[in-house]
C-alpha cells in the first residue's frame, strides 16, 4: 500500500501526538502516538503513512481490553471510535451493517424497538463492533449462541499488504476465520455485517439460585443449561474449605410472544435503562464510595453478605430488561477506578469440561494459598467454534479480578504463572481481551504450534512489513517461526 498522502503532508512521526494509554485494568500503560481518523479514507491514509514511515499501528476501540491488546508502545494507536456510521439496518431480517467504531450500545439502541437484540453481547455495552470482532468476545450465552463471530455474516478488511478484502464464510473463508479473534493484527476491520436475534420482549425471565460449594455450583449450573438462554455464576472467591466455590447463579430465558404482560412496550429504549442511583448515591459518584472498601477485608465482608442475600432469593424468578441483565459492568460507571492507582488484572481461564471441576477448584485454592483471593469470580459455560485463535473450548471459564498494588504485583504475577501452568495441564486456554500476563511459551502450549504458525503465516501474507503490532503481540505471541 503506498501513501495516499501527497507531498507536504506532515509525517505521522511528527504530527501524531503522544498519548499515555492504559489497559482497562489500569495495571499496564504505554506511551503511544495517537491518531483518530474520522473516516475509512482517513484510516487508509494513516495506514499508508505508517507503512511509508516504518511505524507500527495498533487499533483501539473503546479501550475495554483489560490488558495490552490496544496498546502500542512507541507506535501509532488508531482510535477507531470515529468510524461510527451505521451503514444499513434491515428491520425485517435483523441484518445490521456498520463501521467498526459503532458500539454495542449504539447497536442495541438502534435495533431494539424493531425487536432485535445482538445475539452475543459482553458484560458491558461500551465495546465497539471492531473490538468485538477482533477479540471474538462472548457473553453469558456462549454455551448456546457461541461467540460474537458466529453471528458475523461478512466483514471488510483493509490489509497493509493486500488492500481491501471482503471476508465471509464463502469469500476468503480462511482469512475470515482468522480475523475474527485475530486481535486486530491482520488488518483493519472497516465494516461489519451482523445477524441479530429476534426478540418478542425487551425483558428476560431470570431465575436466581445459590450454591453452597463449587460442586453445587457446577451441578446447579448444569441443571440450568438445557432450559436457559443465558447462565452465569458469581463465585465468592473468599469462601474456603467446604464452602470454596460458593456463589450465585443467574439463569435467563427469552420470552415468547405474549409472555410479557407489558407486551412489546418493553422493547422501547426507555424501558432498557440502568438505575441512575444505587443505594441513594448517583451512579457516577459510586466508584469513589467503593474505593475505600476495595480491599481484602471489605470485599470478603461484602461477598459474605451478598452470598447470604442470594440464599434468600434462591429459586425466585423475575423479569429483567436485556440491558439490566446483560450489562452488569455498566451499573457503576468508572468502577475500575475503585481499584486504586495500581489497577487490577483479570485472569480468565478456559478449561475443557472433563476435569474442569478439579482444575477450577485448584485455581481457587491456589489464589487463597497465595493470599491473593480474587475480588470477583465469574463462571460461564462455553462451546467450541471454528475461529483460528478461539478461546472458546467445550468447557468452562472462570474469570478472576485481582487488585494490583506495588506490594502485591510481583507475588500476583508469580501466582498467575502457577494458575497458567495448572490450566495448561488441564488442556485449557486463555482470552486475549483480558490477558496481561501470558508469555509466548504459554500461548504456544495453549493454542498449539500449528495453529499459531498458521496465524503468523497469514499475518506475513496480509501484513508483510509487520505494520500491525501491539504490546500484546510483542509480549505474548512468539516472535517468528516457532522453534
Amino acid at each position, binding site marked *: 500500500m503506498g501513501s495516499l498522502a501527497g507531498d507536504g503532508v506532515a509525517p505521522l*512521526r511528527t504530527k501524531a501526538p*503522544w498519548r*499515555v494509554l492504559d489497559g482497562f485494568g489500569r495495571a499496564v*500503560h504505554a*506511551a503511544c502516538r495517537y491518531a483518530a481518523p474520522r473516516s475509512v479514507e482517513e484510516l487508509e491514509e494513516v495506514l499508508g503513512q505508517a507503512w511509508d514511515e516504518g511505524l507500527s499501528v495498533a487499533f483501539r476501540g473503546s479501550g475495554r481490553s483489560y490488558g495490552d491488546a490496544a496498546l502500542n*508502545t512507541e507506535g501509532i494507536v488508531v482510535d477507531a471510535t470515529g468510524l461510527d456510521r451505521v451503514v444499513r439496518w434491515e428491520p425485517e431480517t435483523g441484518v445490521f451493517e456498520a463501521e467498526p467504531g459503532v458500539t454495542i450500545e449504539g447497536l442495541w439502541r438502534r435495533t431494539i424497538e424493531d425487536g432485535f437484540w445482538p445475539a452475543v453481547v459482553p458484560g458491558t455495552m461500551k465495546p465497539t463492533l471492531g473490538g468485538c470482532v477482533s477479540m471474538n468476545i462472548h457473553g453469558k450465552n456462549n454455551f448456546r449462541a457461541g461467540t460474537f463471530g458466529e453471528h458475523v455474516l461478512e466483514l471488510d478488511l483493509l490489509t497493509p499488504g493486500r488492500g481491501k478484502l471482503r471476508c465471509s464464510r464463502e469469500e476468503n473463508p480462511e482469512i475470515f476465520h482468522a480475523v475474527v479473534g485475530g486481535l486486530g493484527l491482520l488488518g483493519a476491520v472497516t465494516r461489519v455485517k451482523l445477524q441479530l436475534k429476534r426478540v418478542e420482549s425487551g425483558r428476560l425471565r431470570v431465575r436466581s439460585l445459590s450454591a453452597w460449594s463449587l460442586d453445587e455450583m457446577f451441578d446447579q449450573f448444569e441443571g440450568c443449561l438445557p432450559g436457559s438462554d443465558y447462565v452465569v455464576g458469581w463465585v465468592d472467591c473468599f469462601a474456603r474449605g467446604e464452602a470454596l466455590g460458593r456463589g450465585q447463579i443467574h439463569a435467563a430465558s427469552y420470552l415468547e410472544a405474549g409472555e410479557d404482560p407489558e407486551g412489546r412496550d418493553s422493547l422501547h429504549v426507555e424501558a432498557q435503562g440502568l438505575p441512575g442511583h444505587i443505594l441513594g448515591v448517583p451512579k457516577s459518584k459510586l466508584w469513589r464510595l467503593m474505593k475505600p472498601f476495595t480491599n481484602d477485608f471489605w470485599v470478603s465482608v461484602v461477598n459474605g453478605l451478598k452470598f447470604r442475600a442470594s440464599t434468600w432469593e434462591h429459586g425466585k424468578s423475575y423479569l429483567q430488561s436485556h440491558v439490566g441483565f446483560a450489562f452488569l459492568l455498566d451499573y457503576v460507571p468508572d468502577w475500575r477506578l475503585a481499584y486504586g*492507582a495500581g489497577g487490577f488484572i483479570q485472569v480468565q481461564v478456559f478449561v475443557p469440561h472433563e476435569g474442569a471441576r478439579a482444575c477450577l477448584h485448584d485455581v481457587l485454592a491456589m489464589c487463597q494459598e497465595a493470599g491473593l483471593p480474587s475480588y470477583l469470580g465469574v463462571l460461564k459455560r462455553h462451546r467450541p467454534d471454528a475461529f483460528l485463535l478461539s478461546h472458546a473450548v467445550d468447557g468452562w471459564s472462570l474469570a478472576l479480578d485481582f487488585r494490583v498494588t506495588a506490594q502485591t504485583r510481583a507475588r500476583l504475577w508469580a501466582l498467575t504463572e502457577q494458575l497458567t501452568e495448572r490450566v495448561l495441564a488441564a488442556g485449557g486456554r486463555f482470552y486475549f481481551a483480558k490477558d496481561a500476563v501470558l508469555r509466548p511459551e504459554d500461548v504456544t502450549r495453549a493454542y498449539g504450534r500449528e495453529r499459531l504458525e498458521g496465524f503468523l503465516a497469514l499475518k506475513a501474507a496480509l501484513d508483510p512489513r509487520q505494520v500491525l503490532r501491539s504490546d500484546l503481540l510483542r509480549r505474548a505471541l512468539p516472535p517468528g517461526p516457532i522453534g
Partner: protein
Amino acid sequence: MSAAFTRAIVVGGSSGIGEAIARQLAAEGAQVAVVARREAELARVVAAAASAASAASAPGKIKAYVHDAADVDAVPELFAKIVADLGGLDTLVYAAGAMPAVAEGEYSFEKDRTMVAVNLLGAMAWMNPAVARFEAARSGTVVGISSIAGERGRRGNPGYCTSKAALSTYLESLRNRCARYGVNVVTVKPGFVDTAMTRGMKGLFWLISADEAAKQALSLARRGSGASGFVPARWGLVALVVRMLPSFVFRRLNF
C-alpha cells in the same frame, strides 16, 4: 523516593551547565547522550569524558548527537534513535539556551524568535516524548534549566525573560500533571553562572561555576519527587524581593 539516572539525554550538553551535568552523570556511571549544535564542542566533551572514564572505576559513556535545538521537527526521529541507542531512558536534561545580547533601543524579532525556539519550543519538543514515556513507565526524571530571569519581565532582554518564564511555567505544569504518576520534573533556576553566556557581562555577583550549578541541579533532581529551586538557593531571596516590587518601582530600575 530518590531518582536514578542511568540512561540520560542532555540537550545543550556541549558547554556550560549542560556539559557539566553530562560529565557528572557520566562520572556516576550513567550512559549519556549529549545533544548539541556544535560538532567541535561535542567532540571535546566526548574526549574529555573518555579520558576521565579511563581513570574511573565505574565509567559511564558519553555519546554525541549533532542537532540544533531550534530544529524541533527533527526531534521525534532523533529521540527515538537515541532511546534505542541507550536501550531505554530515565532522565532528560534540557539545558539548551540562547541569550543573544540585546542593545539599548534594539527591537529584534529574529533574536526573540531564536530565544523562544531554543529556550522554549525545543524544550517542549524533547519533553513531550520523554514525559509520555516516563508517565507510562511510572518513573523518570526531567530536568529543565530555566533561569531566575523568568521571575519578572526585566527591561534588559524581553525575549529571554519571556522564554524562561514560559519554560518555568511549562515545567511547573508538567510537574503537576505527572507527579502523581511518579514522574520527577525539576525546574532549575540558576542565577549568574560563569559560562559563555555570561562572559563579558557587567555587574555579575554571586557568580558560581558551571560545575557547581550542575552539582546543585542534580542534587535538586535527586530528591525524586519533583522540585523547583534556585541555584544557588540564596537567589530565592532575590526572586522574592523582585517579585514583590510594585510595577511603578520596577519600571524605574535598570535591573
